[in-house]
């Protein structure tokens, strides 16, 4: 049975795809939203740390599963190994309706003005493809605002002197400080820094027909038990369905973009929940599958005109994979600092995002989300026993006395940190899998060392009796904050899409996820992904009125 031709097919129901589906269906386009996972439900994981997003030894509650998915990782010595989604090197985000927005910590940052102008601010860097975005913060500002008000953000940027200019405040009041916040806030002020409450995509008060956060222990890494966390699964996607123009098809794994002889996109080939191959033709194709799966789909879609993958004429698809190095420090305190209440992370400083002598950029420093017991078993100073009586004693004594402050370091993009297609390994459906290779730029580690030092200074000022640094490894970045693999730019020779997320050479193929990020900011990326999805959709809607995409 052939499906009815639609105006737009959107692949991936995460932060970007959910918003693109809503915007296009509200504008009157007929939309099919394809998602490889299912609708998530809180009871699927039931407070289970071992399958939560942060620690996945027994699998991912939010997908993908270990049975049908795999990837190949190239080791530093050139050999390869197969990795499963539950292993860290897989570079997983999630696979369900809402994707990462179901289980995320939900920090809602706007990137700063300089984050869009890294090259012109800091100059070229050897070994890095550091570049300016083709758009400025001012271009994105109205769409940040739209994301904050439509998805829902609790925060108060007026307390952050480094916040970029905004026209409208965030819609909900910020979350109050917990014990850690009350310790760290005065300490930061004594150091001359500027702490403020972290903006969060989480209801601090009832909002959008959903209740306020109940401050339970199971927050980051878990779906919200009372639906107080704001993701696309409980905001944009239901709104898209309510228009009557959007059909969400779950358990559908896209394998290829249909390409015609004229080099235009014609729809998507996918495997449905019964593993049958299906074709959904459309006037427009929007890719929002994450910075690893979007390039995989493009590189797996070949035609006479695109022998190396669609949009890959200049060999930039899959390049510049980046995420965030997390640098900071742990500190032990004499009084108990753990108050058994989520979300845990509550305050941040932006004093070290830019303007650090000798460094290109930096990152925000925040206190950590509430941590679970198993995660804490690996939180030890260097040289501390990893097992036995002393390890158990440390766990018992310090689980409630340990504070971490850390932050996402803005990474320097590297051309050879990349997503490719593995020549031999295939997944359950026979689709060639992602092959990850490369390593991070050494400058990331310099910035990390700097931020780790500031973090330790902060903890000591707050009264920590002992601190130890948290440093990233030197291997490939990516992870949940994965970005950069289909860079947007004005020059088709050094980018994949134009400033509207439209793939160069193909006017009806768009990318609306973090793949288009040129650089990834010193912040958690989700609000920027959402703003960009609004930005890309806005362009499509305007162009659609001109009937430009009609077949």
């Amino acid at each position, binding site marked *: 049975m052939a499906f009815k031709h639609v105006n737009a097919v959107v692949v991936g129901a995460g932060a970007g795809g959910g918003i693109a589906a809503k915007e296009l269906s509200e504008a009157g386009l007929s939309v099919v939203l394809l998602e490889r996972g299912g609708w998530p439900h809180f009871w699927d994981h039931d407070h289970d740390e071992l399958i939560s997003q942060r620690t996945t030894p027994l699998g991912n509650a939010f997908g993908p599963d270990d049975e049908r998915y795999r990837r190949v990782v190239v080791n530093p010595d050139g050999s390869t190994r197969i990795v499963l989604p539950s292993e860290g090197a897989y570079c997983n985000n999630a696979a369900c309706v809402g994707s990462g927005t179901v289980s995320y910590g939900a920090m809602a940052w706007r990137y700063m003005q300089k984050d869009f102008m890294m090259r012109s601010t800091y100059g070229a860097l050897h070994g890095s493809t550091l570049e300016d975005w083709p758009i400025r913060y001012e271009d994105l500002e109205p769409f940040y605002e739209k994301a904050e008000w439509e998805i829902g953000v609790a925060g108060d940027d007026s307390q952050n002197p480094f916040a970029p200019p905004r026209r409208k405040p965030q819609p909900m009041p910020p979350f109050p400080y917990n014990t850690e916040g009350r310790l760290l806030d005065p300490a930061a002020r004594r150091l001359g820094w500027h702490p403020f409450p972290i903006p969060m995509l989480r209801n601090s008060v009832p909002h959008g027909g959903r209740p306020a956060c109940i401050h339970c222990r199971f927050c980051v890494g878990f779906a919200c038990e009372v639906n107080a966390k704001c993701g696309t699964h409980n905001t944009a996607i239901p709104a898209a369905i309510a228009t009557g123009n959007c059909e969400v098809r779950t358990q559908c794994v896209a394998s290829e973009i249909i390409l015609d002889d004229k080099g235009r996109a014609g729809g998507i080939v996918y495997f449905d929940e019964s593993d049958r191959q299906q074709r959904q033709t459309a006037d427009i194709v929007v890719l929002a599958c994450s910075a690893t799966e979007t390039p995989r789909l493009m590189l797996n879609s070949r035609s006479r005109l695109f022998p190396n993958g669609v949009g890959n004429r200049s060999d930039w698809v899959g390049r510049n994979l980046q995420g965030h190095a997390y640098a900071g420090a742990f500190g032990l305190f004499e009084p108990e600092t753990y108050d058994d209440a989520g979300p845990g992370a509550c305050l941040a400083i932006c004093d070290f995002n830019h303007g650090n002598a000798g460094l290109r950029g930096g990152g925000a420093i925040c206190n950590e989300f509430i941590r679970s017991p198993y995660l*804490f078993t690996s939180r030890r100073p260097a040289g501390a026993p990893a097992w*036995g009586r002393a390890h158990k004693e440390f766990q018992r004594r310090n689980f409630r006395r340990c504070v971490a402050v850390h932050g996402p370091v803005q990474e320097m993009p590297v051309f050879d940190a990349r997503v490719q297609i593995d020549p031999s390994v295939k997944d359950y459906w026979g689709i060639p899998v992602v092959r990850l290779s490369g390593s991070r730029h050494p400058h990331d580690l310099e910035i990390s060392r700097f931020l780790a030092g500031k973090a330790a200074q902060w903890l000591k000022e707050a009264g920590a009796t002992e601190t130890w640094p948290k440093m990233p490894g030197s291997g490939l970045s990516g992870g949940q904050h994965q970005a950069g693999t289909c860079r947007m730019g004005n020059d088709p020779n050094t980018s994949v899409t134009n400033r509207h997320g439209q793939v160069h050479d193909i006017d009806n193929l768009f990318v609306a996820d973090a793949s288009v990020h040129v650089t990834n900011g010193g912040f958690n990326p989700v609000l920027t992904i959402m703003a960009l999805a609004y930005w890309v959709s806005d362009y499509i809607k305007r162009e659609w009125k001109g009937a430009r995409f009609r077949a």
Partner: protein
Amino acid sequence: MSKARYPRRKFIRDVAAVAGGLSVLPACNKSRGRWRFFTGEEADTVYAICEQIIPTDQDPGAAYAGVPNFIDKQLVGPYKRFQQTYRKGLQGIQETSLAQFGARFESLKWDRQTEVLTMLEAGKAKGRTWEKENPKAFFDLIRDHTMQGFYGSPRHGGNWDYVSYRMLGLDYPQVIGQNRYKKA
């Protein structure tokens, strides 16, 4: 239930039935049917290793928490891929114990068991198995799995009686529906 409705004779009979049941239970420990992957001998070794990794002190340790049951259960589930690693690794630990102290691991004194595991952790363990297998990799694996079984959710067969949650002072199931932040 009031005393009058529970005759003394019936009470004695019930107690005897329960006590009888209890006396049968330890025998089940040794039976083959209890384990999904481990042999009875392997299970004894795993009990001893897990207890070394998270010992009993003022709070119960890994054995009480059922960590060997957790590992056994995962080895026929998500950890199927580690079956051979365990089979060889447990064999290797016995070889090291025999070479070093002339007895099986689980029959060694506490400090000698610790010594054997410390050798594995350092990657310097005697035994034929370790000529091919990596002792540190096996130790790190079973160490990590023990942490999961002890500190993870009870739904997977470990953390019996919520022992680790009680040790850390975490109520479980969690009492929710209250705002726990102090009003600033």
